């Protein structure tokens, strides 16, 4: 049965098909998926009406993966095979994980590549694979609700995620077989959900304290444009730390030290979390803890004690707020609204101290658990091309400075933090020895002056520099960060043009070949072999190119093209269309490239015309 598609108010009936899209909030504790239906973003429940999917993955046996509530229920009983809070591990090296604080109940494989893998009965699992398992469940949920295959998704990440963590999240999407439109920063997503509903213009702060991460973003909202002025936070600070503080206190009160067995630790952590959440309503909560072997401990936790435990953590979030404000050149009083996001902002003490800091009561109207997923869904809908008239535009920044190592272990900053994306910056370096023919380039991220205090992102080498005296070579290193916050670096020797380029794959990330291998091995993709997949990808790309070309030609093909140019484009398009109906991915790829080349001048002219129109539009409206 064909459904009638009714254009939404204020929107022209789309000339193209409505494409299915979803927004996924991949959280430390809970994950959610949301979609836009009839112009409204809504999160999707499971069959039992539950919207939140606990971000817990259990490898029940060699090939049964359980995700969500059932997995969470088994966390205490089967700690080694049940992975919770994997977001804390994603994109991190084994050394980072050791310093994360709090004992993790997993066993790690000493990985050669530096990427830690968790030993489970189903084998060693990387954080990327675990995250992919969560993504798959949510994507299926969206596909079921929408009744079709997703054209793409927007996945949210903490604004403060570094390049390695973003890359790893992107890899997880790929492993889950999803087309990623965009990685979106969580606070920006929340602002989208709020801003569009309320049409509030001006300066806003988004305070996002979830289970495992804290983010603060300062944004200017103006006529649909969300301009992030600065962002800050701590990608290892959240409600989990509240739980740990409380658990620590419980163990202390019960006369037990650290270094307990993982099962007990998990139980106490769960009790601590329950007590913390209950304290958001009650003034004090009774505790009755099972210490194992028939021993119990009873006591009470009141708000005052709790405040004492969490205040240092809340203070850390406020320091980050102060810095973000300073980076934006603002004082706390200049912010019109503070949007509260994340489950931990339900803690009354958090609200109290945030209100005191900004001097205004924070906004809590939208469900702090769902607002991020809703914003992601709205943006996914825009990126899928379903809202051609939308004027929403998100201008994000890079959260951490990027630079390279120079002599003496010092960092030379190339892109400072809070630079609007996308950005490209170049800097010139030279050789320091006579006849030097290679140069090692070490890319780092962070705010400190010493390389050892920053995060190492990648190392690569520019070879083939013509031998010259020291200081004569001119090596231009270019950093480019795209709208997702992902970095690529290239280096070029200026006099001879020797070039080296890397997509920055973090030292503890997955190599592309590894992702390929996992795709091949993973159960869900066992049927579609790689060749079929490749063909399908090329066909989809061909269809996309042809559709967008057709729309463009109808709009301004007449105005911008000479007849012979038009004929060449038509011929190349026709050839692509014919080949796309066939089964040779290579041929489709070549035809695509040919069409792209033929269209290049046209594409450029269109972009220029768009820019001219934008400027002309401004000038006209200025006079009225």
């Amino acid at each position, binding site marked *: 049965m064909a459904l009638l598609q009714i254009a939404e108010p204020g929107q022209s009936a789309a000339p193209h098909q409505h494409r299915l899209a979803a927004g996924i909030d991949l959280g430390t504790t809970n994950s959610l998926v949301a979609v836009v239906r009839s112009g409204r973003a809504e999160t999707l429940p499971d069959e039992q009406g539950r919207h939140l999917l606990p971000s817990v993955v259990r490898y029940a046996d060699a090939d049964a993966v359980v995700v969500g509530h059932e997995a969470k229920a088994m966390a205490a009983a089967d700690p080694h095979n049940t992975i919770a809070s994997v977001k804390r591990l994603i994109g991190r090296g084994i050394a980072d994980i050791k310093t994360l604080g709090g004992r993790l109940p997993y066993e790690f494989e000493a990985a050669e590549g530096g990427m830690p893998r968790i030993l489970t009965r189903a084998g060693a699992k990387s954080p990327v694979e675990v995250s992919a398992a969560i993504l798959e469940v949510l994507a299926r949920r969206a596909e079921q609700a929408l009744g079709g295959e997703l054209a793409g998704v927007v996945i949210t990440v903490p604004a403060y995620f570094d390049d390695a963590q973003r890359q790893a999240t992107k890899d997880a999407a790929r492993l889950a077989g999803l087309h990623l439109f965009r990685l979106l920063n969580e606070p920006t997503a929340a602002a989208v959900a709020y801003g569009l509903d309320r049409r509030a213009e001006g300066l806003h702060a988004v305070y996002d304290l979830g289970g495992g991460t804290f983010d603060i973003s300062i944004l200017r909202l103006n006529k649909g444009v969300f301009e992030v002025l600065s962002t800050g936070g701590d990608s290892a600070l959240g409600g989990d730390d509240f739980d740990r503080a409380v658990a620590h206190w419980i163990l202390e009160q019960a006369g037990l030290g650290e270094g307990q067995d993982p099962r007990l630790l998990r139980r106490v952590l769960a009790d601590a979390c329950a007590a913390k959440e209950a304290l958001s309503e009650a003034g004090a909560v009774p505790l009755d803890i099972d210490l194992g072997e028939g021993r119990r401990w009873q006591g009470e936790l009141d708000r005052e004690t709790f405040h004492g435990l969490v205040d240092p953590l809340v203070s850390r979030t406020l320091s980050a707020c102060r810095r973000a404000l300073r980076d934006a050149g603002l004082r706390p009083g200049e912010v019109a609204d503070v949007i509260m996001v994340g489950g931990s902002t339900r803690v009354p003490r958090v609200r109290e101290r945030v209100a005191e800091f900004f001097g205004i009561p924070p906004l809590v109207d939208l469900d702090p658990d769902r607002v991020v997923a809703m914003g992601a869904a709205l943006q996914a809908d825009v990126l899928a091309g379903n809202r051609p008239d939308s004027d929403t*535009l998100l201008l994000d920044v890079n959260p951490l400075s990027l630079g390279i190592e120079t002599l003496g272990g010092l960092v030379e900053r190339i892109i400072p933090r809070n630079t*609007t994306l996308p950005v490209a910056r170049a800097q010139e370096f030279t050789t320091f020895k006579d006849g030097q023919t290679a140069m090692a380039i070490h890319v780092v991220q962070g705010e400190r002056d010493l390389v050892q205090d920053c995060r190492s992102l990648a190392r690569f080498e520019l070879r083939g520099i013509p031998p010259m005296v020291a200081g004569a070579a001119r090596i231009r290193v270019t950093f480019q960060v795209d709208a997702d916050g992902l970095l690529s670096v290239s280096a070029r020797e200026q006099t001879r043009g020797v070039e080296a380029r890397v997509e920055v794959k973090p030292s503890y990330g997955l190599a592309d070949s590894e992702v390929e291998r996992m795709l091949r091995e993973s159960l869900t993709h066992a049927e579609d072999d790689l060749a079929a997949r490749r063909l399908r990808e090329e066909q989809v790309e061909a269809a996309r190119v042809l559709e967008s070309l057709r729309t463009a030609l109808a709009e301004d093909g007449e105005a911008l093209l000479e007849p012979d140019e038009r004929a060449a484009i038509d011929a190349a398009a026709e050839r692509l269309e014919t080949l796309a109906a066939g089964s040779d991915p290579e041929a489709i790829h070549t035809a695509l490239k040919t069409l792209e080349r033929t269209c290049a001048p046209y594409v450029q002219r269109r972009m220029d015309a768009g820019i001219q129109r934008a*400027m002309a539009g401004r000038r006209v409206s200025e006079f009225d």
Partner: protein
Amino acid sequence: MDLTRDHFALFGLDRTYDLDVQALHDRYRELQRVVHPDRYASAPDQERRLAMQEAVRVNEAFQVLKDPLQRAVYLLGLHGIDLDRANARVDPAFLMEQMELREALEAVPAAADPHTALEAVLERIQAAIEGLQGRLSGLFARGDEAALAEAVEGVRRYQFLDKLRQEAEGVEARLEETG
């Protein structure tokens, strides 16, 4: 996009030091609406690459124009003056003033009330910067050779002060972190 077009032309603004900040912000938004890669999320790779390139350029131009110091350096460049090569005239009176400000800044952490002491230093820096901005706008408006030579010296001073301001903000950050 015409790469020979300078930042001012890209934003359709007059080549002046006193630019209309509101217009700059409005045009920035309009331009990003056209070139931002998110507008091309479903477009072919080629268009996405082009959009990326243009958006980078718009961001770069905006960055330069909105910052009064970078704007001054850029304007000098458009007048064919490379600041790194231009003659440095260092006014001893100015240097004295700098040294004094720096000493005041160094004394901040040890002051009885460091926050107030820092506030005072920041205010002095700010006042000096605003004075320079006023001077630069007059000089760029004149635009003759003598005026530009003076502007070079003004920009040099501005760079000093800007560096000092960054250091002062660093001190502020450390003060806040230690409570």
